[in-house]
């Protein structure tokens, strides 16, 4: 038996690089051929059918009313997301509070707005003016209370014509924001629950109030869970602005494109124009999303990343975001 000489320091040695013949993949070439033929057939369909009217489409998809609608779509998306996120955070905090009334109310809120389809909600909101032509702030049930005590009661502070309040644009923003807040509340709640309870405890033990602990300690850490699905929600929101035709909102991309299509009896080219515009807008968001995901999924394993991606896509479809 020999004892290895441990005192000698190992010396790096040169090695011959491997020169091997790579494996051939004939299947790939077959697949490429099949796809090329299918693509050519599709192009043939698009280019030879005169109903597409490519020239007409190109002439009309950049006209001022369309760009005005496009600007409206982008603004509504941004406004609805901002209001939706802020309201969602409030609802999520209420949902996790110790106060049973707040907890119940926020639960009912998410239940209602998750159950009602956005399209239906927007139609209803567009028609609210029929139900209450005038909105007034005052004592609830005032005339009934007055009858009870035998006096003429009309205790109102101020009022406003519903028609003035519910002009299309803002109804659209409000409807989408209210609905979005329900989904954001679930996302924010899941994010807050993902933070180690020891964090809240440490903050509390230092004498922080509940609000301070949430704002300074819990929410910043919940962000890495909250931000990626919020990107998906933004993409979904952008697409859902096309539902605003139900209110109706005129300052919106799909409304303007449809209007041109209906007026000129060239419906189909304008529908293709809508698809191209949405492809363009969503592509921009997808680029942003890619960087956000890269930034915020750091430190998670591949399986966890895939899970986040799936949850995000489910959210984008309007399915219930998964809550642990």
């Amino acid at each position, binding site marked *: 038996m020999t004892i290895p000489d441990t005192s000698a320091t190992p010396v790096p040695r040169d090695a011959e690089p491997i020169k091997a013949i790579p494996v051939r993949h004939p299947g790939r070439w077959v697949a490429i051929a099949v796809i090329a033929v299918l693509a050519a057939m599709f192009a043939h369909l698009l280019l030879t059918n005169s109903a597409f009217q490519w020239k007409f489409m190109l002439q009309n998809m950049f006209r001022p009313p369309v760009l005005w609608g496009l600007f409206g779509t982008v603004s509504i998306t941004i406004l609805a997301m901002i209001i939706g996120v802020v309201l969602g955070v409030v609802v999520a905090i209420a949902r996790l509070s110790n106060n049973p009334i707040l907890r119940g109310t926020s639960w009912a809120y998410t239940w209602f707005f998750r159950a009602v389809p956005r399209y239906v909600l927007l139609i209803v909101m567009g028609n609210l003016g029929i139900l209450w032509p005038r909105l007034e702030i005052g004592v609830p049930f005032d005339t009934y209370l007055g009858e009870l005590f035998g006096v003429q009661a009309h205790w109102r502070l101020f009022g406003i014509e519903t028609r003035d309040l519910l002009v299309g644009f803002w109804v659209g923003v409000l409807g989408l924001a209210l609905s979005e807040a329900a989904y954001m509340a679930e996302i924010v709640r899941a994010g807050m629950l993902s933070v180690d309870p020891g964090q809240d*405890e*440490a903050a509390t033990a*230092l*004498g922080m*109030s509940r609000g301070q602990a949430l704002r300074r300690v819990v929410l910043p850490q919940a962000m890495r869970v909250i931000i990626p699905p919020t990107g998906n929600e933004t993409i979904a929101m952008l697409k859902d602005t096309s539902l605003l035709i139900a209110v109706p909102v005129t300052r919106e991309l799909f409304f303007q494109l449809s209007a041109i299509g209906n007026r000129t009896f060239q419906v189909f080219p304008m529908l293709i124009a809508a698809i191209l515009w949405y492809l363009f807008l969503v592509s921009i968001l997808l680029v942003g999303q890619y960087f956000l995901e890269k930034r915020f999924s750091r430190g998670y394993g591949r399986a966890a990343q895939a899970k986040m991606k799936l949850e995000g896509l489910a959210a984008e479809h309007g399915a219930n975001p998964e809550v642990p």
Partner: protein
Amino acid sequence: MSDQARHRAPEDAAGPMVRAENVHKAFGHVKVLRGIDVTVPRGNVCVVLGPSGSGKSTFLRCINHLEKIDAGRIWVDGKLVGYQQKGDKLYELHDKAVAAQRREIGMVFQRFNLFPHMCALENVMEAPTQVKGQSKAEARRRGIELLDRVGLAEKARNYPSQLSGGQQQRVAIARALAMDPKLMLFDEPTSALDPELVGDVLDAMKDLARSGMTMVVVTHEIGFAREVGDQLIFMDDGVVVESGTPRDVLANPQHPRTRDFLSKVL
């Protein structure tokens, strides 16, 4: 105010820092604390020993009202914790008042619980600036001083994930000290550490004990108990089975359960 001051004055000056009287606590049907009586005089170090599940952490968390007790009373620095006694009626304190009481009680956790999105110095500065309204400059000066005291001045800009467990725990001690507490609670501060990192944390705690801080320490470090403990209590199944000076209890345990436990950890 003067009335209150007159009531409290004698206790403040000479009374114990912590007095627990017949403390009970249950989680659902599980009775975790079943009548704890403990008195910790000012400047003393009280070491709490006991098997897992005996209620040590729960008792510690009751002292700063992270858990609400079901029966009994706890006073810290002569003031009832979490409640206010007016005549023969007991009133729950408002969240704000409870938070104010907690400011005076520092707590160090087994799992450190540093804020991972803040660097070491920001962790230490957070409570003084947010809770006490201290200026940033003042909090920074004090924060660096405290980090220096636990031997981590040069790690001030490191995030918790860039620190070893022992360093994280010392930052956690500095963070608690930044509020100038009268009392420090330690819940197994070295149990999550690799053996070679335990010493630095214990040194910081010994230093603190020598400076006159009143401390309640749950630990299995018998050497620490013997060296700096003024008093040792042994808990089992929600009651204090045995108490006395560490030297006496460790050398000559009276109760069979204490003997049994010590034979396992020594």
